[in-house]
Structures are given as structure tokens and as C-alpha cells.
């Protein structure tokens, strides 16, 4: 674990029925760092992300974010933390289909209490940086997969999160589109000093990270930390 760790997990265990998804996983990430979480399908990497982000409480073990124990927080406290400090990008953008791309990107900022004008101003800035400002008035169903994923990244970064959780963010894109999305995501995260937890089973995606953590059979192995 590094001294400047922003988010850490120790001894995480999580089972779904009789299946142990996590079986004693450790993890740590520093501010501004991009860490790839790798491993085969079913190894527990998405469960690790869900526990780290406070989406799912672990059965045992602790998650600490800036010294606070996330695993001990109430549901309401964890929701507030996710809204204020965390951003999310999933494999399929998961944009709200009834809203325009601009409204989607502005949504978390609005939920955090900003006015519509301010929220859309910030969202537009990110849509420009992610090269999708021209589709801002389109609905998600009217844009390509790559554009939708860029809108999802703009939505994740607009509230200035300290940690972005990206679960197979390019899994549904072709290779060129996927690479451009990764370039934009990592560039934007580095500029805003956001840490990124990048879950992927692809080495080419992991190559955009600073280091990798390998999850196998529910255990996470931090190779950089081990050396």
C-alpha cells in the first residue's frame, strides 16, 4: 500500500450464495493514479470494483476512502459519497434514453445541487474535450456506441470526481474507437488528477494504466506493490 493511498481495501470477501466472488482481496490506489484491474471472466474484478465504489457492501474486510471506512457507512452516506467524489463509466454507457447527451452529462452535477445553467456549462466543457459537443442535443439512441461512451465519460468527469470507476469501458467498441475513448479518458483523468480504477480483461486496455492488479479466484495480486 502506498503512503499517499486515496482508496484502499483490505481482506475483502464477498459471496453470492455459495459462490465466493472475492476471497480476501487487497487493493490500493493513489490520487491521480490509473490502475488496471485485470483477470479472466468470473475472477471477481467487477465485484471488487463494486465493493471499492460502495455499490455493494463486502461480507468481510474494509474499504477506506481518504481515511473513512466506506464499509461502515450507511446507504445514504455511501450514496452521497458516490455522488460527490466518484464517477462511473460502464461497458454500455447506461445513459438515460429520454435525456439529451448534454442533459445526461450534466445530470450528476445537477444532482449535486448545481443550477441547470452551471451544470450544463460544465457538461459542455467536457463534451467539447471529448469531441462530442456536436451531438449534445441528440438522445443516446441517435448516436454511435463510441459517441455514447464519450458522453458517459463526460458525465463521469463533469462533477470533478476524485476517483473514476471504469468497468470494461471499451468492451462494446471496435478497436480504433476503443483506443480513442481510452486516450481521452486517461488524458482527461490525468489533467484533472482523478484516480481511475480501470477494470478490463484486455492487455491493450491495461496498457493505458500506470500499473496493474491481477484478480484470480477472488484474490487480488498487486504486482507493483509486491516488488
Amino acid at each position, binding site marked *: 500500500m502506498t503512503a499517499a493511498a486515496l482508496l484502499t481495501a483490505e481482506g475483502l470477501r464477498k459471496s453470492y450464495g455459495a459462490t465466493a466472488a472475492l476471497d480476501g482481496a487487497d487493493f490500493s490506489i493513489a490520487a491521480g493514479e490509473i490502475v488496471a484491474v485485470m483477470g*479472466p471472466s468470473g475472477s471477481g474484478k467487477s465485484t471488487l470494483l463494486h465493493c471499492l465504489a460502495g455499490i455493494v457492501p463486502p461480507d468481510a474486510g474494509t474499504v477506506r476512502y481518504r481515511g473513512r471506512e466506506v464499509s461502515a457507512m450507511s446507504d445514504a452516506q455511501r450514496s452521497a459519497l458516490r455522488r460527490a467524489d466518484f464517477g462511473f463509466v460502464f461497458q454500455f454507457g447506461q445513459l438515460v434514453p429520454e435525456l439529451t447527451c448534454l442533459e445526461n452529462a450534466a445530470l450528476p452535477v445537477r444532482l449535486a445541487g448545481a443550477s441547470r445553467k452551471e451544470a450544463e456549462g460544465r457538461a459542455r466543457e467536457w463534451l467539447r474535450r471529448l469531441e462530442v459537443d456536436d451531438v449534445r442535443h441528440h438522445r443516446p439512441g441517435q448516436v454511435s456506441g463510441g459517441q455514447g461512451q464519450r458522453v458517459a465519460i463526460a458525465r463521469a468527469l463533469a462533477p470533478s470526481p476524485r476517483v473514476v470507476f471504469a468497468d470494461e469501458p471499451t468492451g462494446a467498441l471496435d478497436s480504433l474507437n476503443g483506443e480513442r475513448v481510452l486516450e481521452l479518458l486517461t488524458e482527461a483523468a490525468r489533467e484533472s488528477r482523478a484516480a481511475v480504477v480501470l477494470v478490463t480483461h484486455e*492487455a491493450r486496455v491495461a*496498457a493505458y494504466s500506470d500499473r496493474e492488479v*491481477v484478480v484470480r479466484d477472488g484474490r487480488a495480486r498487486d*504486482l507493483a506493490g509486491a516488488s
Partner: protein
Amino acid sequence: MSISHTLLGLLETGPRHGYDLKQTFDQKFGHDRPLHYGQVYSTMSRLLKNGLVEVEGIEPGGGPERKRYAITDAGITDVAQWLARPEKPEPYLQNTLYTKVVLALLTGRDAGELLDTQRSEHLRLMRELTRRKTEGDLADQLICDHALFHLEADLRWLETAAARLDRLAEAVRA
């Protein structure tokens, strides 16, 4: 692939004659290219000279094929160092990596750790290429992409091997 390290690793599982060594090597690693007897004996005499193997006994009848070779402590250290050292990532490494994995399993070492160390080494180079690609022009991008695709293929093989280590261990020890 390093033939001398491979023969040395096979000797770690127990002393053997040169003929046995060749047979075992061909059976486990030499599917397309069996070893020549001459390669075995020249390798053994070099390993003897370097103190990595010793002659445990000579059977009546004389001749180099009657010598029974055993690995020395220095030889075991040499095998351990070779297995622990990741290979320089380059295309078509699977022969060497396969040999290392099988020898690690045969000698009771952690083959999973060997694969993890190699994955890190591959990813280190992939990061460097990715950085060069994002900062470079189209020609750089295409050149780096070629290397990245090959490294990715090797890594996929590593993942497949890692997922089958238990079965492979059973097979090689049978």
C-alpha cells in the same frame, strides 16, 4: 529457447543418462525439432565444465552415453534464476515460455508466479509502446500497433496457460 537451461531443469527432477535426457526433451519440448545427440553431449560437457552438473556414475561399456549426470547446487540456482527472470517480450516467445512453465511444474516451483512476472514484463513494454503511439505520428502508431498486437497474442496465451495450470501440472507429472 535455452537448451542448456532446459536440460539442466530436467536433471533437477533426477539424475539421467544423456540418452534419457534427449528422449525426455524430445517428448516434452521437441515436437517439431528433436535434439541431436551431439547437442546433448556438447551441452553436458559445457555444463560439467561450469560446475552446474556432475557425473554421478559411469556404467560399464564406456562411451559418453553411459555417463549418468546429476545437477549440482549451483545448477539448481542457475535453473531458479532462469525461471524467475522474465523473458524479453518479443513475438513468438511461446516455446520458451511453455518450456519454463513445464519445468517450473516439474520441479515444484510456482508456475503461476512465473506467468505473473512475465505478464508484468509484457505490460511494461506495452505501456511504453502505447505511450509512444499516443505521442507519435501515424507511422509510429502503425509500427507500435504491430508490436502491440503480437505482445497481446503472447499475453492471451499466458492467460490461457494460467487458467490451465492445474491440468497441465497433472499432464506433465504423469
